[in-house]
């Protein structure tokens, strides 16, 4: 680990430990550093901006309460993202049970300058994601939006890294089928 990385790690640990003791300024620094990542993940899972905002807001409330239980402060980003993802997942499941169908495509505004092929692909993915469970959406968002690896996702969810990989693989197969994309020549 380089000196710069060591210094950065020390700063993270100090910030998390201060925030855990109720230091509002330290907590504010965490919000500034991680809110955007949490909101992006929550949006992909929840499917609409309002629900995503609710999820992230609740996640910060939980973080305020539970920060002291975080054993490794260096993992605070993954921990926060997992909480936001879980809140978004719960909201999505609840709304689905209540029959409120979430359609993320309603929220996506067409970009007139975008490549039309790219726009179609986004719409196709949005359509395919409607068929996924909240857990599958959560895994996709944590892996591909937040960039967490299988080990970190597994650590946060209490499952093995291989379990994460197999679930992600199944989810990708499902998407591939729904998107009608052949498997060959894929590397």
């Amino acid at each position, binding site marked *: 680990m380089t000196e710069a990385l060591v210094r950065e790690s020390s700063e993270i640990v100090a910030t998390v430990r201060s925030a855990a003791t109720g230091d509002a300024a330290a907590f504010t620094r965490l919000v500034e550093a991680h809110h955007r990542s949490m909101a992006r993940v929550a949006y992909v899972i929840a499917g609409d901006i309002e629900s995503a905002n609710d999820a992230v807001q609740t996640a910060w409330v939980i973080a305020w309460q539970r920060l002291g239980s975080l054993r490794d402060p260096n993992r605070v980003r993954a921990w926060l993202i997992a909480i936001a993802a879980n809140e978004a997942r719960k909201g999505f499941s*609840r709304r689905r049970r209540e029959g409120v169908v979430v359609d993320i495509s309603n929220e996506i505004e067409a970009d007139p300058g975008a490549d039309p092929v790219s726009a179609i692909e986004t719409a196709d993915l949005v359509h395919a994601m409607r068929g996924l469970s909240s857990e599958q959406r959560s895994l996709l968002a944590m892996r591909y939006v937040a960039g967490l690896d299988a080990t970190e996702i597994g650590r946060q969810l*209490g499952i093995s890294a291989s379990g994460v990989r197999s679930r992600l693989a199944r989810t990708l197969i499902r998407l591939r089928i729904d998107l009608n994309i052949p498997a060959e020549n894929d590397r």
Partner: protein
Amino acid sequence: MTDETTFERRIAALLGAIADQMPADVDAMAMTRLAAARRPPSIASLRVGSLEWSVRLSMLGLVLALVGALVGGALLAGRFLDRAPLLLLTQVPPFIGLPPEGAAPSEPTSGELVLQFAARMPALGMEAQQGYLYADGRWIWQRNLEGSASAQQVFGDLEPTRAVIEQRLTPEGVALVEADVLDAMSQVPGQGGRPGTRPWGEIAVRIDGRLQAISWTDEDLPARLADPGSWLPEAAWADRELRGYVPFRYAICISSELELSQLPPVAAGMLRGRVGWIGPGNPSSIGTCYEVTTDVAREVAAALDAAVVERIDQSWQLAYRLAPGCCDGGVYFAEFLPDGELLLRGG
């Protein structure tokens, strides 16, 4: 996972484009204030580990007496009925742990939380309480959660119990309770301090469609919320009877120091493959929770019993402790509330 395929890279790029649609500007200081004020530390943080053994035993006796009465009643009913008992119990007596077989879950399965309340006021004989009021009229509460000698003290016109209780208010009753809280509110939500620290209390109420923590100056407010039967008119009640709250689903939570693989194989197998999460409001000693149906919860409990895992003799929830020296961790069964939160208290 580093060996990504073209397809994965395309999915990642498209998901990134979708995520970019999310406006993520935030007033970080305002968010901090909100986090600190909106949802204060749950009553779950009231630790119960210091409970006196004598109290534990007396409470255990109370629970055993209750279970005995229920079992005895069921046997008597079975003896004198010439047909099988009803399969669906819609009026469930208070219970600790998992509901009796055939108990119908509280309906509807989800609900909008309009008021959350937690308090302890020893001077009034009111030990730790928590209550949740839903827009559909459900008033779900639990009390006597603190491990003190007076934990089983009667408060108001309620009998002592640690079961999770459900009563139902009429729409007028819900409006009355909300109005009472809003009338007693002393400051702009989220702007005030937490005056109820001694005695301790936290109240959050729906304002502008959101649950917001409030401050209050009316010292009697927590007592009124702890015992709404003492002041609400009869017309406010749709069903005043104390019934056991039967959740739609349960969460099985394991201690943070415990790995799923350390559970007995049959029990672990029932939970493996489910997506676990760090539940909100969990006591710090609880790590991962798994959402399960009540039937699966029964099977897991049966598997733990079959493996002779020790039941923790706490009288407010079903809980197990793995052998000391082996794993030194616990397994807790927690109810889901209609708003999707977990009801956890201590660990």
